[in-house]
């Protein structure tokens, strides 16, 4: 941490928001020899990046997002060498299951379409699935298996990126709240609540659920909503369920997913969400959601009935109405970049987003298609209306 500076801090790039998106961007910018100031209101990776489920899942995503997810998956595979720290990534496989033939049909269609994006999925019918994975409940009609997806530890990944960025020369400012962002001539001027000033010709806003508060200052408001995911974890038991499991359904209450970590605990998420408080930065777990979620997890894996939950938690996630993030260049201000609002599915994407944003900032373009995530989709809609 760097103390208050009298002179403005000047770098090539300023990143406001030190979640996994911002921390990974800072890290990859250093690999491209760009000087960077990473500014975080609290601590690196403390909000959604640190409280999410920990899914490193590609299947089920919006298809045009798969190239980005694939690029990210490749980085996950070499994350430990890259960062010099273990974020507990395990390519255990990921199984999506459904309770109705309609959902199975939908997964089959997805599996066919995903092939074109280089994602190979294996459809397995209910009985074959149960003979391979006897823990599934009788309601499970079938599933889609993605062999090289998996999971990682969200408490460790973003802070590891932050530390690696710092070791590589990034200026990391924690506990630094940014209250004003503006463009002054060719430079962005970024001011913190305690009066520090940061300057750079390039600015990236990766402030998660709070991103809109900053994009609005550049005349680009977005209809973001904050939601708190409902998570819980059981006591440890012998490591037996290796793949990550998730239910595909149109019924929000039925959505449930789980992963067992190597030390034995089962992490469970899904179902209804709560409304966090953006000012206190706290999201709560509604006990009714926990009970409903636990009811649902027993449909998926009945044997979990014999376990106990030892902890619940939530976090503050930013959701867009179309369920895809805001990522790429500003439509209004040159040098301004966005990467926020990842709608509860940003953890897997984090390393890839960092790599793509660094490429975009460094070269002015990226080989990975990100057009569907442009912030201009909201301004265009407003103009039509």
């Amino acid at each position, binding site marked *: 941490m760097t103390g208050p500076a009298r002179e403005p801090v000047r770098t090539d790039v300023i990143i406001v928001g030190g979640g996994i998106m911002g921390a990974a961007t800072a890290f990859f910018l250093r690999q491209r020899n760009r000087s960077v100031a990473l500014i975080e209101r609290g601590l690196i990776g*403390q909000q959604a990046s640190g409280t999410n489920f920990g899914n490193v899942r590609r299947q089920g995503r919006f298809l045009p997002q798969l190239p980005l997810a694939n690029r990210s998956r490749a980085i996950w595979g070499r994350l430990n060498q890259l960062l010099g720290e273990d974020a507990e990534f395990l390519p255990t496989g990921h199984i999506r299951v459904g309770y109705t033939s309609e959902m199975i049909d939908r997964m089959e269609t997805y599996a066919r379409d995903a092939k074109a994006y280089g994602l190979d999925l294996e459809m397995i019918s209910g009985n074959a699935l149960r003979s391979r994975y006897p823990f599934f409940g009788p309601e499970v009609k079938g599933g889609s298996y993605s062999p090289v997806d998996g999971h990682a530890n969200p408490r460790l990944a973003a802070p590891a990126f932050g530390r690696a960025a710092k070791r590589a020369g990034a200026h990391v400012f924690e506990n630094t709240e940014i209250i004003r962002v503006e463009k002054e001539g060719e430079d962005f001027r970024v001011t913190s609540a305690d009066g520090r000033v940061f300057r750079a010709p390039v600015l990236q806003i990766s402030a998660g659920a709070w991103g809109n508060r900053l994009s609005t200052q550049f005349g680009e408001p977005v209809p973001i909503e904050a939601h708190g995911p409902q998570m819980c974890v059981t006591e440890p038991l012998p490591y037996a369920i290796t793949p990550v499991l998730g239910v595909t359904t149109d019924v929000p209450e039925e959505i449930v997913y789980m992963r067992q970590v190597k030390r034995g605990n089962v992490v469970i998420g899904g179902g209804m969400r709560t409304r966090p408080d953006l000012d206190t930065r706290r999201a709560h777990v509604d*006990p009714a959601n*926990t009970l409903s979620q636990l009811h649902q997890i027993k449909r998926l894996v009945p044997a979990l009935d014999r376990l106990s939950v030892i902890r619940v938690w939530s976090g503050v996630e930013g959701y867009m109405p179309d369920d895809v993030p805001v990522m790429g260049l500003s439509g209004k201000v040159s040098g301004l970049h966005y990467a926020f609002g990842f709608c509860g599915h940003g953890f897997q994407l984090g390393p890839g987003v960092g790599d793509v944003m660094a490429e975009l900032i460094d070269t002015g373009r990226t080989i990975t298609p990100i057009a569907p995530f442009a912030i201009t989709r909201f301004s265009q809609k407003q103009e039509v209306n």
Partner: protein
Amino acid sequence: MAQPRIVIIGAGPAGVRAAETLVAAGIRPVVLDEGARDGGQIYRRQPEGFRRSSCELYGTEAERADALHQTFDALKAKIDYRPRHLAWNIFDGQVHTLCEGVADIVPFDALIIASGATDRLMPVKGWEHAGVFSLGASQIALKAQACAIGRRIVFMGTGPLLQLVTAQYIKAGVEVVALLDTSPFSAQVRAAARLASRPDVLMKGLKMVGGLLRSGVAIHRGITPVEIHGDADSGVSGVTVRLAGGKLQRFDCDAVALGYHLRPETQLADLAGCAFDFDDVTRQFMPVIDGDGRASVKGVYLAGDGARTQGADGAEIAGRLAAHAVLADAGIGASAMQMAALRRERERMERFRMGLAAAYPWPHHLAATLSDDTILCRCECVTVGEIRAVATEKGADELNRAKAFSRVGMGRCQGRYCGQAAAEVVAAATGLPLEAVGRLRGQAPVKPLAIRAARQPS
């Protein structure tokens, strides 16, 4: 007008007196208690079928115990008493309970939390071996089941409970190898004036110490715990301490009772959203309350050892006072005179609490001396060295950050038994004041929540 829905959590001295006060005002409160019978920990009632006399169970406190039990027996028809109900969460004006695998919801207009205290623990190398119990647990084994925690026992730590439980084990005929107290006798002498705020209790204490001295049990004060010896197969085999004079001494034993006075059980207050303040005297965060027990959250009241460890007599006063505050705030009418008298009594209890804190200080300095390989978090097997490493090498100088990086306090006990020691380790390793290191944020469930309790929502 409908009666306000008033819920009391806990049926120990504070909860019972709160219920009594509310019933006297014509209210029928819900009393949720985790125990199978009333009395709390201090006046825990033995299971049905046991036939020990109150005198055998409660010694000098038999009369007070009997009075509390009789009061509660007489109240049972006038309250909604729900024993074996764990309050596992508080959310949005409702207490979430669990009873034998069945989840339920109890809405409230006012909530009195009388959750009691648990042992305050400082780790020592080897404290994870089978045969190491907290002092409170050692006492419960004796009181509830007439069982001893071992055949040859060392009692180690400090605080009034250390002497009391040792004396109770001696009386029960168990071989006590030694009483090893980290507090020097001089601390008790210095605190004498404050302890004299309750002369009757001071006299009882002195009598008990006299009895211990006459018993011939080895008593060492001003000791420093070094290690509890043992192995995975046979558990504890001995304890080594540094005596006040500097000499290392080993005591062979098969069980150790360990504890450094008490800490308030504040998880429910935390889940209810109550604000906390740092208490310099005892070096711990405690929920903010006013003189009557009102917490920072409207409609939430805290009474007994769960708010301030003033002991059983203090808890009875605090329970009455909190109930009066509930009545006053509900406009039902409480006696101002009674409240004033209770507040005066409570102040005396508070002076005595300060006296105990000085007489038996929490040995926070031990945190800096623990070896790196000492296990601190026994649920998650996190060592002192791992906590120091995240604090100093990864910048986790705040306790919840240290938890996120190291898993300390993430297990079954939710940090109740290791959280305060973990904070001391982080403070010692970083040189930060303990207050800045903070406290573990409470997260539900208060105790493990059986998944079988989750049924199809109706």
